[in-house]
């Protein structure tokens, strides 16, 4: 991506060093993140798990440049986020980061196609039509592409959202509970699609989830408790993830 990436981050699409996020102060102080060091490698599908309040969503927001750290540093590719201006952060998000949220992913007044090309439109450049067509046919949206979000099922809406994230071929896609609102079959389709995006196109994805099945689609699962990474698991299956969760729960 960059001409001369520093060796430490050569394989990282995004990484955090000593990421700390503190809300409030004094008695009400909450350490949502407490010195997290993590790296999301290129072409890797990482799941972030942890109980409610463990800081997984905060970690994702901070790494995506949506929120700022109290201390520590986050890099997207080789770019440190803390020194970026608001405008540069926005451009970085637009060009190098993709998002999939649990809900309210799409602009209701735009068609599916318009939603997918929205980041390119915002950047004022044409979307890569060939690539977009490929993505759309992969997710099986070709027939629904002129429909508006309210004419699509929840699963279809989420597929549009994933397509939008993929359309700009970002360095990394952050997904926040992407299957949280979907039934297990539909959710499985979305996850399989994300998996194939990693396998076929080398897309980097980081996903927050609390569903062991969802996490099993990832290459690696990291576990967060009280703002700290407590463990991680490679090549997870639903059972190994569940076991790990149980052991952490004890």
């Amino acid at each position, binding site marked *: 991506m960059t001409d001369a990436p520093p060796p430490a981050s050569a394989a990282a699409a995004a990484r955090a060093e000593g990421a700390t996020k503190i809300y409030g102060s004094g008695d009400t102080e909450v350490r949502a993140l407490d010195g997290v060091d993590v790296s999301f490698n290129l072409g890797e599908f990482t799941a972030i798990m942890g109980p409610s309040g463990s800081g997984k969503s905060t970690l994702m*927001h901070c790494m995506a440049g949506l929120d700022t750290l109290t201390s520590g540093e986050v890099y997207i590719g080789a770019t440190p986020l803390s020194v970026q201006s608001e405008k540069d952060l926005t451009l970085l998000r637009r060009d190098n980061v993709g998002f999939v949220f649990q809900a309210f992913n799409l602009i209701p007044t735009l068609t599916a196609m*318009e939603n997918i090309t*929205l980041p390119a439109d915002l950047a004022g450049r044409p979307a890569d039509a060939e690539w977009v067509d490929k993505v759309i046919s992969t997710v099986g949206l070709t027939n629904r592409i002129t429909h508006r979000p309210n004419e699509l099922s929840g699963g279809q809406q989420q597929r549009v959202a994933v397509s939008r994230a993929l359309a700009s071929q970002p360095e990394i896609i952050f997904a926040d509970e992407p299957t949280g609102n979907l039934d297990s079959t539909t959710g499985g389709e979305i996850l399989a699609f994300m998996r194939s995006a990693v396998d076929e196109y080398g897309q980097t994805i980081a996903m927050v989830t609390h569903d062991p099945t969802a996490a099993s689609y990832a290459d690696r699962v990291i576990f967060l408790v009280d703002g700290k990474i407590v463990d991680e698991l490679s090549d997870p299956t639903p059972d190994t993830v569940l076991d790990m969760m149980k052991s952490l729960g004890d």
Partner: protein
Amino acid sequence: MLRLTIKNLLDKKIRFALTTLAVIVSVASVVGVFVLTDSLRASFSGLAGDIAGGSDLTVRVAQDLGQEFDRPPFDEAFADGIDVVDGVDDVIPGVFSFNDTVIIDDDGEAIRPQGPPTLGFSWDPTTFFIAAGDAPDALGEFATDVSTAADNGLIIGQTYAIDGPTRQEDFRLVGTFRFGSPDEHTSLGQTMAAFELEQAQDFLNRPGQYDAIAVVVEQGEDVATVQAAIQAAVGQELEVVTSEVIEDENAEGFDEFISIFNNILLAFAFIIVFVSTFIINNTFQIVVSQRIRELGLLRAIGATGNQVARSVYFEALLVGLFSTVVGILFGLLLGQGLRGALNSLGFSLPAGPIELQTRTIVWAAAIGVGVTMLSAIVPARRSRTISPIAAIQNDQRLAGASLTRRLWVGGVMTLIGGALLVVGLFVASTTTNVLTNVAIGAVLIFIGVNTLSPSFARPVATALGAPIARLFGTTGEIARGNAARSPRRTASTAGALMIGLALVGMAGVVGSSLTKTFLNTLDNAVEADYFVQSSSGGFDPSVTFAEEIATEIDSLPEFDSVVRYRFAQSSMRIGGVDKDVFAADFDLVERHLDADIITGGLTDADPRGSIALHQDPAEDLGVGVGDTLTATFPDGETDELTVVAVFTDSSIFGNWLVDNDVWEAHFVRTGLAFASATVTGFSDDLPQAEQDALLEQAAAAIAPVAEQFPTIVAESRVEFRQSQQDQLNSFLAVIFVLLALSLVIALIGIANTLALSVFERTREIGLLRAVGMTRRQLRRAIRWEAVIIAVFGAILGLILGVIFGVAAVIAIPDTFISIVSVPYGQLVVYVLIAAIAGILAAILPARRAARLNVLDAISHE
């Protein structure tokens, strides 16, 4: 991004409609005023040419003082000199009278329209064109214009009574004519009576005199040469002007009339624009806060803050452009409607083509787009700061200015506004300065108070809601909570109503003070028992009635004295300044009216050489009783007048009073503006029964006079007091109606905000319904919320209005208003009206909220 904005607008049709409504109303009101006055101007300028007639030159007395109808006539012998000048083809001498020649119809009613003049003429074949019958060519004959004849059912061959400047006489109608052109009658609603020249000289009181001589120049002759030759023939006493000059003068006169009209209407239109700006701003604020998640999502996927802000501006631009186009269309309709409305209020405005000038379109666009863009500035700036997190998290709020900053900004603006107001009212000297200072001051105060008001909206709304909460339990409590929970929105929604009610409140205070002052003057200063005034009423001092009527009343034994009053504006020059002048009968007037004379007296003064004046000009000029003043009159003559009295009440005669002898020496008009009479033997000390008996006799005696002369009304002191009060009230009513328009806008604003709030609270409403709130209760809650907001705005507005009103009353010269009166009863009524307006505004939003499907509402994003 632009596509997104457009799609958004098209998709949210209700929101779009609500946003555009206020802009459309603003644009339409300004366009309506321009269209009306431009159309009038077009009709009038055609008229100016028609009035100038078919002659080339006009000979008349030069005049540099007083009104056009005060131009003195000249001796008819001058015509002989003109006839023989080389190049003169035709000479048409003429006399005319303004507003004192009135035809009386078959039913004994005076044909006298409100506003347009009644005119008497000698026949002029170059401007009058016979439509039916013949031109009047003998004594006892007259002709009238076709529309007067048609409108009043006048029939050729019948005899009608006509009230002239000095007396009433019967004339036979011999023909009807078109004015201005042979094919089409040019009318402003004026009533015209034309007579044969000698008859006109006699009846219009121009014995041996002409008002003007129209000259037709021979074909091929140079008009300027002939003009110079005539000027040489008539000498320096008269002037010779071309028809272009006459046309320009006429056009100028009309222009002045239209400009005043235009300015008054524009002032109201701009009040509407100003009020609308608050609503538009508020709407954008709400729209942006409703879209906060959507805008957050845009930010998350890469829209810059600028792009988001730009989309808000672009939305404003589209709303502005759309509203401008629609507003212009409505404005055209409104212009027509205004004409009709004003006509039904008693004006007679000419019909004519609709004029849509480029200037109007430019203004419409400037207001439509400008006001909308201006209103979008703050919401757009705030939208820039929306965080991308907003897309993920619920309950994101737009950052508003901090309370301290609000207090500072609002406080400083209010103070500067107040200072400007004080400067405008009490220091500034020229009218323009006064108006500029007062207008800018008031605008600053409005914005300032509106900026401040969120800081106290919560406690006030809570307090106002207390009785409602007590009365309606939970429903009332919810209404109160909703009104109080977003003080910024409550304050800005109430803002529009605040301005409307501040204006109404101010008009209320000024009107009430004016009425009080007037009645007080009547009660204290009036000694006479009977009053005679023109039956057309109104405030036009040029409308007069024949002197004969006063003489006739004087001859009745039931009345022992009659005083005649005349009035002219800017017609007496003293010390280089043109003064308004009043004339009365000095020997009697002190028994009729008491102007609080402090030194000297009128009764025994020499009527021909005396003047009385108010204390203020007396002090300014450093004169007192016994000193002399040099006064110049419209006839160009100068008199040395001795000051015989100084008075302190300027509400009766203004500042300057002369005797009728002085008037008759210098003014061509003989008609009376007013007359008062005392009843023989009447005294306030008599027992009530005797007073009543005397007044009854007087009424019986004067009734035949009033019947013979329908141009007047004769009223006893009690009737006069009532009719004056009625007249004042109907005048004030017109102002209230115009101001009430701003209330309608405010109503739209409240409805708008409520509709958007309901939409915003869909989920919450669903929850309330789910846990058992009935539709009826829900509607009630929304209705009461509206009432609290409306009453909040009303009270704030009325407080400002009373302050403005009292300041205005203090600033207005004592001649007009000397008593400060706050109409508390009226103010309470206004608050009630505002509350009702709130209920009306809530109808649609409440219905919409009640219809929501509970399940859909709960799952609403």
